[in-house]
């Protein structure tokens, strides 16, 4: 009996104190595919977490690594890059550049202590609305698990 009480109490205690963590994810989405998919997903009334804030770009290759760095520096918990499948880039070869940049960036991030799951590159065509929803859901869950990044707390007083 005593145990139960304690458990209940602590549960209550936790519920009171901990506000569930909602990750902030920035999504840089290619207008021709992933962005279109997000549009369609909406039209199709597909449900997925609202954690991703979308920045539309014409091509995933427009995404300068600085943007991602900056996003993390300024409080994002994750960044999603959405582009067309390799070989299907509306601009012929942009997504190959993206692939290389993100690969290099991820390596850099691993040296800087940013978990791999916080930066995600996905090829989602306009028709793949289910995939889009799945990716958003999956990424949100993974980042949620990782917890807040709170980059500024690394070097700035609270």
């Amino acid at each position: 009996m005593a145990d139960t009480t304690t458990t209940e109490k602590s549960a209550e205690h936790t519920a009171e104190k901990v506000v569930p963590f909602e990750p902030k994810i920035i999504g840089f989405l290619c207008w021709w595919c992933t962005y279109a998919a997000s549009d369609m997903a909406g039209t199709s009334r597909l449900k997925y977490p609202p954690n991703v804030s979308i920045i539309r770009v014409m091509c995933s290759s427009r995404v300068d690594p600085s943007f991602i760095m900056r996003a993390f520096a300024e409080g994002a918990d994750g960044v999603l890059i959405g582009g067309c499948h390799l070989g299907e880039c509306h601009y012929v070869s942009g997504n190959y550049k993206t692939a290389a940049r993100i690969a290099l960036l991820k390596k850099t991030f691993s040296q800087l202590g940013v978990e791999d799951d916080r930066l995600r590159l996905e090829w989602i065509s306009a028709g793949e609305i289910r995939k889009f929803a799945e990716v958003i859901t999956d990424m949100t869950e993974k980042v949620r698990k990782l917890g807040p990044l709170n980059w500024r707390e690394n070097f700035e007083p609270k």
Partner: protein
Amino acid sequence: MEETNEKLVKLTIDGIETEARKGETILQVAERLHIDIPTLCHYRFVKPYGACRICSVEVTIRGKSRFVPACSYQVRDGIEVQTRSEEVIQHRKMLLELMMARHSQVEVVRKLAHEYGVDTTRFEEMPSEGCILCGLCVRVCSEVVGANALTFVKRGTDRYVSTPFEGKADTCIACGACAYVCPTNYIKVEDIRDRKYVFSELSLGPTTPIHIPFAAAIPGIPVIDSHACIHMQTGECGICSKVCEPDAINYEMQDTFEEVDVGSIILATGYKTFDPARAEQYGYGRFDNVITSLEFEHLSHASGPTGGAFVKADGSEPKSVAILHCIGSRDKNYNEYCSRVCCMYSLKIAHLIREKVPDADIYELYIDMRCPGSGYEEFYNRLLEEGVHFIRGKGVEVSQMPTLATTTPAASNSKLYVKCEDTLLGMPRELPVDMVILSVGLEPAEDAEEVARIFKINAKGDGFFMERHPKLAPVDTLSDGIFIAGCAQGPKDIPDSVAQGAAAAAAAVSLIDAGEVALEPITSVVDEDVCTGCKTCLVVCPYGAITRDEEKGVAVINDALCKACGCCVAACPSGAISQRGFDDTQIEAELAALLMS
């Protein structure tokens, strides 16, 4: 060279003095003089063979006479040829008698023998199966076709025609030339379930290489199927060009690729029907009398294979037909969407069957009847009045044996049993029918994916092309100037397709009419003060829109060529390139705003 070597020889045939080129055979010379020499194993496109000996004639040379086969004996100077001397006739008759002992049932032999007054034979009759061993098939296959798929087996009286080592002839290219040259029809092309066979070892394709594409083709001229044409496959044959008097055969003609500069493109690449073999439970491909709706169209068409008669595989008239809706549509296993056209065409099929076989029992097995359209519902009502049985319940299986204990097997063992659940009666049923028609759904065309890639447009999850906006831009695509119409965009019936086609045409025309195209405004621009001309952007740009101004040592972007992807902006290591109206600071501001909470 050819001409100087050509020597003419003088000879007499049946008293007629004539000249011939060296190397010509007696038969060729005789043909020219309209002297008839009978042959059985001769064919002008293969080498002389000299097996039947019917063409033997008497040749006198320097006073000595001998018998030679006219088909292979090459004329010499001074020879005297007798094609119908008493002795020649005598020997020919003897050979024909020998022929008659074996092949009296073969028409060419009987006719030829009759010409020589040979109607009976003195020899013991040992009827053959019809092959006179002329070797034409073997020779055509080897000399003309170059396939060597046929050969003689054994020797002497045991000799017969077969495939090498009597196995499956994998060199056979299915041309049917053997059957064509066979003078006795011993080699026949037989149809067995859509495949054509000569022997069980030789199976042929469905059409001849030269054919008119379809009955009402315009222009109605034959084409050569390069995959089936012997000449194009092996370099041999070429008979058609030899026999075509106007010299209209052209093997060199190639598919040509025409480049057309256009301002807009409408993609109306259509659909393909669902292949019901994927749904094995319906027995398509296993049971002869299970056909698809499209095959029914072909079958019932007035210029179709039966001239419009609606018959079963055995040629008899079906007395009961089940039409199964939603095959491959509205089905999680195949396609979830509704193909939209099947309900109405299934009604039409029922109506046509009713016309052709007035007393037939016709069953429509449906999930829902979807008849939204002008006059559609009325047509449905008419069918109800025509006595078509509508069963609300999807057909689930077609078998040759009843599977429900309650079903009484029909008297005829050629019946098919269609199992379904009649949801209105609330019980399972099994219908014994003569024929099953599968109303197959619509699927994206075979090459839809490829087409989408080429035109840089997107396909939806079901594979049909995606419109820019389902409500606001139904014929546009994300690529400017490319429009879609008809079933390429999704299943739809004819009126809808026509309407969409008109819309796409109007959209395309409006673009053309405007005469100018609005360029992408957010092109990239170089800050010449910062740019060092490092050429990184030149490597990156897929459109070649960036060049280096060698004088200034900076990159220059051609606005007309720039498609505004922004790749160079990100790539520029010195930050000298920015995108008009979409520069880094704007994106960073967007970012900051999003992260501001």
